[in-house]
């Protein structure tokens, strides 16, 4: 069932978007191959604007953008037949039943009624919605609404799926389930997924490629594996007590180390594996609860990349 699209999914050249005097996207050049892509950036970096420009929800001020090899703005209906989108906010049509709503959106994408009905139920099964599908969407909880949004985005079998904060408002279990669904869409079924999120943990779980936007520009575009590679030789050590003592011990060995606000001890030991670190811990007489190598790659990248771009922070 794996079907992968050849060629770049998104291609932009000098994509510019202005709202009045505010420049939301500043001459963006982007080339994205199929995959699971994480779109990161601080508030107001232009993530949502980029998605909306690609979907033609906003007109583009200047430059070109291509989706699946077709020019955005010319072949609207054709492009949108092949993409799915879950907006950030609630977007159901009040008064409709869950399954009715998904069927309706499928028909809007051009599926004939019989196929729409069938696929609507299949997708509701896929996102894990049970008998609730026969209830009115107004009565849904946040979790069900998020599932419904995903179902309506994939019901017409798109090739590219844009997800804007899909785990927002979900409880911990719901977050895991939602991310699992999204991950499977790419890994098992070949749908290119573009995930925009604030939760770096989410992105790390699902995505293989990272695009970091700030002030309307691309700061970083790389694969997650390569980003992790860069941070090899650093680790977070979790101990139940004596944190500062441990950090002291690391520093005595010549490794830069500090105690983080969350109680973890950050250390840069520089070795390819953890053995020197464990050795040091033994000599200190402390048993680690956890050792997380190349920790918070994304968070660090995020903070570092933005130090210049982000204002007073």
């Amino acid at each position, binding site marked *: 069932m794996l079907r992968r699209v050849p060629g770049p999914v998104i291609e932009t050249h000098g994509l510019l978007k202005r709202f009045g005097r505010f420049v939301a996207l500043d001459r963006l050049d982007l080339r994205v191959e199929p995959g699971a892509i994480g779109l990161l950036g*601080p508030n107001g970096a232009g993530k949502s604007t980029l998605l909306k420009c690609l979907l033609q929800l906003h007109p583009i001020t200047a430059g070109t953008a291509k989706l699946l090899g077709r020019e955005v703005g010319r072949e609207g209906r054709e492009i949108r037949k092949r993409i799915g989108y879950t907006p950030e906010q609630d977007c159901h049509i009040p008064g409709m039943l869950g399954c009715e709503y998904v069927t309706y959106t499928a028909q809007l994408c051009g599926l004939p009624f019989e196929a729409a009905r069938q696929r609507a139920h299949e997708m509701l099964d896929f996102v894990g919605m049970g008998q609730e599908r026969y209830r009115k969407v107004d009565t849904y909880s946040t979790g069900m609404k998020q599932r419904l949004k995903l179902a309506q985005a994939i019901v017409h079998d798109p090739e590219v799926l844009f997800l804007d904060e899909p785990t927002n408002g979900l409880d911990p279990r719901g977050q895991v389930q939602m991310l699992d669904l999204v991950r499977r869409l790419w890994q098992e079924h070949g749908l290119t997924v573009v995930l925009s999120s604030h939760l770096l943990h989410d992105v790390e779980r699902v995505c293989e490629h990272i695009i970091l936007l700030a002030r309307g520009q691309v700061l970083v575009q790389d694969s997650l594996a390569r980003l992790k590679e860069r941070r090899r030789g650093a680790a977070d050590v979790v101990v139940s007590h004596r944190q500062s003592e441990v950090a002291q011990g690391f520093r005595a060995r010549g490794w830069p180390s500090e105690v983080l606000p969350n109680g973890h001890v950050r250390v840069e030991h520089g070795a390819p594996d953890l053995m020197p670190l464990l050795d040091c811990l033994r000599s200190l007489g402390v048993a680690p609860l956890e050792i997380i190598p190349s920790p918070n790659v994304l968070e660090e990248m995020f903070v570092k990349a933005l130090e210049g771009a982000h204002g007073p922070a």
Partner: protein
Amino acid sequence: MSAIVQVRELSRWYGIVMGLNHVSFEIGPGLVGLVGPNGAGKSTLIQIITGQFRPSSGTLTVFGEVPWNNPRLLRRIGYCPERESLPRDLGPVDWLHGLGRLSGLRATEARARAERLLEKVRLPREHWAKRLSQYSKGMRQRVKLAQALLHDPEFLVLDEPMNGLDPLGRQEMAHVLKELAAGGTHILISSHILAELEALCREFVILNWGRVLASGTRDTLRTDVQGWSEQLQVRCDQPEKLARVLFDAGVLRGFQLAPEGDWLHLEVRDPEVFYQRWLELLLASGVVVGEIRSESRSLRQIFDKVTA
């Protein structure tokens, strides 16, 4: 210190729908986290605490008083709602000014405080002239926090305050909250992002299906949860070998080789003994370790166990 919020046999129904069902517990001072799945009754609880709803039966008191229609008490409570709707036609300074007057500040004082708070929540000055309707999610959260702090409350109730903030914003927000807590303000936070709550709070209340399933600090929670055991995941080059060494040493209750390759799941017999010996055994075995994870201590694991 005694409890801030005392709940006795509290129930809240919306017609036939259940919000909270016959719960009794206390919320202590300091930073307290409120967790639970969607629809667990967190919002109901918060809305009763802040005087927006009344209990159907039972009592809930804050500082010993009932919140509904009680200005004397509401003066001491600050509230930041979950939903991000704000008035559409106002700028942040005017809004905070107006709310400040409603909180009993004098005109000049209200304006000065509004500006000071906007700086405190790090809302960049260039956005002050904008109307609230043009604000992004992150900016909205900051303004909402500012309005909760207007009257310098002793007890702060925050419903999902981190929602929609970027990682930097989250750090800043956490910093502000810790500072407030250090200054003696009691804070109740509800959130879905357990890892963040864990880093922030000392005590937790776990709700599900309108009942309080557990409350206490992470350590007391862990001992309270039935069937909890210390578990470890180790990524290494020879998981079988490591498993054999540890099992032979008699420190394990069980282990499991993960299907995806180099991960080894360990279930510990007695944590105390295990942690005393485990580094020795590991280093002696000659297995090269890449990563050690122990999710069983995290709030998330406790949460999963409790709400399962």
